[in-house]
């Protein structure tokens, strides 16, 4: 274990972590605005990956170019799912019900993907997928750099939308307090639907990078969603900044642990860190302290 390897793993971690952060941001946005835990986020990522795969293999469309198709597609899928199923969730156990409903949706999608694409592992290919560029003596895969750039672009776009547009203001109001937002005349229904769509749309981008860096099939979604959940809880559920920080942090730590202690521990560390942090700070890094309801 030497210094270069450590540095390498940190850089890798930041680069890939940014993509996870992007997907986690979508997930936490959904929770923050709608009080829904979208467990299907994992399978949506895989769906995005498969769509990129289909476009690339059957139509020869480049992976990044294909995003122009897959992102809007997943946006629409998100809206459809929200309208069809999530609007029906009523009652006091909203959060728990949302877990079950979105889990059911993910099962159905998993089954469909298995039937259409079979359970064989596939990977996304492009000229930049297996090539690296040498930067300061370290080999960095092109795909990591491009993925990072893409994540930065998309996250910036998201923040611009949130802080510079009227819609964004509505979203931030809903994030802070739904009841007050409704009282001020914000169409919380519409904001919710669009946010769900956005939250899902980012999985198309994340999915493409995931598919280009991992061999995957539909069952890869379990590992994905468990990581995304850990990230948003660690960052504080509903906190966008938290998802960003936690996403990059967790993946970087995981890569570091793999280099320093071996890959056996890296997987474990991901979840162990959450357990430790939550024991000390139950609301996550940036979450709101649970208000004692008198």
């Amino acid at each position, binding site marked *: 274990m030497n210094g270069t390897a450590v540095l390498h793993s940190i850089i890798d971690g930041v680069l890939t972590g940014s993509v996870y952060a992007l997907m986690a941001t979508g997930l936490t946005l959904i929770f923050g605005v709608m009080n829904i*835990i979208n467990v299907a986020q994992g399978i949506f990522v895989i769906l995005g990956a498969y769509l990129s795969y289909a476009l690339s293999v059957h139509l020869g469309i480049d992976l990044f170019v294909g995003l122009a198709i897959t992102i809007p597609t997943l946006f629409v899928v998100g809206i459809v799912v929200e309208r069809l*199923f999530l609007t*029906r*969730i*009523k*009652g006091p*156990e909203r*959060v*728990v*019900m949302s*877990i*079950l*409903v979105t*889990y*059911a*949706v*993910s*099962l*159905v999608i*998993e*089954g*469909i993907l*298995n*039937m259409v694409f079979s*359970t064989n592992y596939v990977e996304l290919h492009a000229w930049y997928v297996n090539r690296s560029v040498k930067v300061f003596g370290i080999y960095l895969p092109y795909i990591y750099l491009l993925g990072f750039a893409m994540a930065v672009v998309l996250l910036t776009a998201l923040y611009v939308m949130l802080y510079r547009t009227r819609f964004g203001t509505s979203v931030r109001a809903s994030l802070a307090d739904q009841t007050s937002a409704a009282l001020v005349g914000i169409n919380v229904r519409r904001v919710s639907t669009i946010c769900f769509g956005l939250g899902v749309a980012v999985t198309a981008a994340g999915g493409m990078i995931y598919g280009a860096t991992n061999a995957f099939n539909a069952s890869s979604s*379990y590992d994905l969603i*468990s990581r995304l*959940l*850990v990230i948003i*809880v660690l960052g504080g*559920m509903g906190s966008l900044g938290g998802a960003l920080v936690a996403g990059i942090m967790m993946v970087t730590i995981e890569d570091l642990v793999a280099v320093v202690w071996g890959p*056996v*521990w890296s*997987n*474990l560390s*991901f*979840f*162990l860190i*959450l*357990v430790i942090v*939550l*024991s000390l700070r*139950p*609301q*996550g890094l940036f979450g709101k302290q*649970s208000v*004692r*309801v*008198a």
Partner: protein
Amino acid sequence: MLRVRNVWWIVALAAFVLFPLIETNPTWTTIGIFALIFMGCATSWNMFSGYSGYVNLGSAVSYGVGAYTITLLADHLNVPGNGDLFWLVPVGGLAAMIIAIPVGLIALRVRRHTFVVITIAIFFVFQLSAINFSFTGGTAGLQLPLIPWLETNYNKPFYYAALAIAVFAVLLSVAVRRSRFGLQLLAIRDDEDRAAGLGVKVFAVKLVGFTMSAFVVGMGGALYAIFIGQIYPQFVFDPIFDISIALMCIFGGLGTLTGPLLGALVLESTQQYLAIRFSNGSLYLIIFGSLFLVIVLFMPQGIVVFLGDWRSRRKARLAEGARVVLGEAS
């Protein structure tokens, strides 16, 4: 509530007891064993999560700990492949209960929806540990002494052991529901802070409920281990198990007594049957998921409550009809 239906409970119990004596086809009795294991696990899961509202999606931890404990013990104590193994099943449950204490100490301090996620995270910690550590045999898993009973009779003892666990779980659930402890769990579900303000030792109550539930699930895992004879980390620490248990209780009716039993019976038998008939897992996923969606969206209180409502509405309508016919004013 139980008084009216006491007869039905006895009838049902008799049916379960007689089942393997009548139906000797091992395919069916195997389905019965799994159904009963799940009925026991679902009932005790409900006893904590259904009553308190703290949805535990990491109960597979208890299941897996039970399975590994019995396997490791059998190995270390050189227990031969015979009926003695059954005595170790409660030990598996005990181990699961002991492990549940530190888990509960960590997990029960957070809010409800964070609790759900942290139970998932803890689950993965256990699963990955089982895969990575050598004393657990890694991905190759561990083996148990195989019990050399005859094929045709192999299932029967397991079936009755599973039945015993299920009955125990039900009796425990009833005892809890009837006790002040059970009331406090229910109060926690409705208004935790208010309960605290009324003197309920909320954390202690949750921890006790959590560990009691772990005991039964641990026994289920231990029984599974000696039944199959070989355990793999991804099968005893299985995320699908976590979701299935929750689903069975939701399907049947969270917080009711018959709900988890019905839910487990129907869903587990269906799953086992479909797994045997259709080796095509994808179709199963689609059917299961769709069924799940329908249940959760249209009968969110579960079948038992749904049917109960339906029956009382029907009775009301019949009574109304009777009044009209008899010429009384409505």
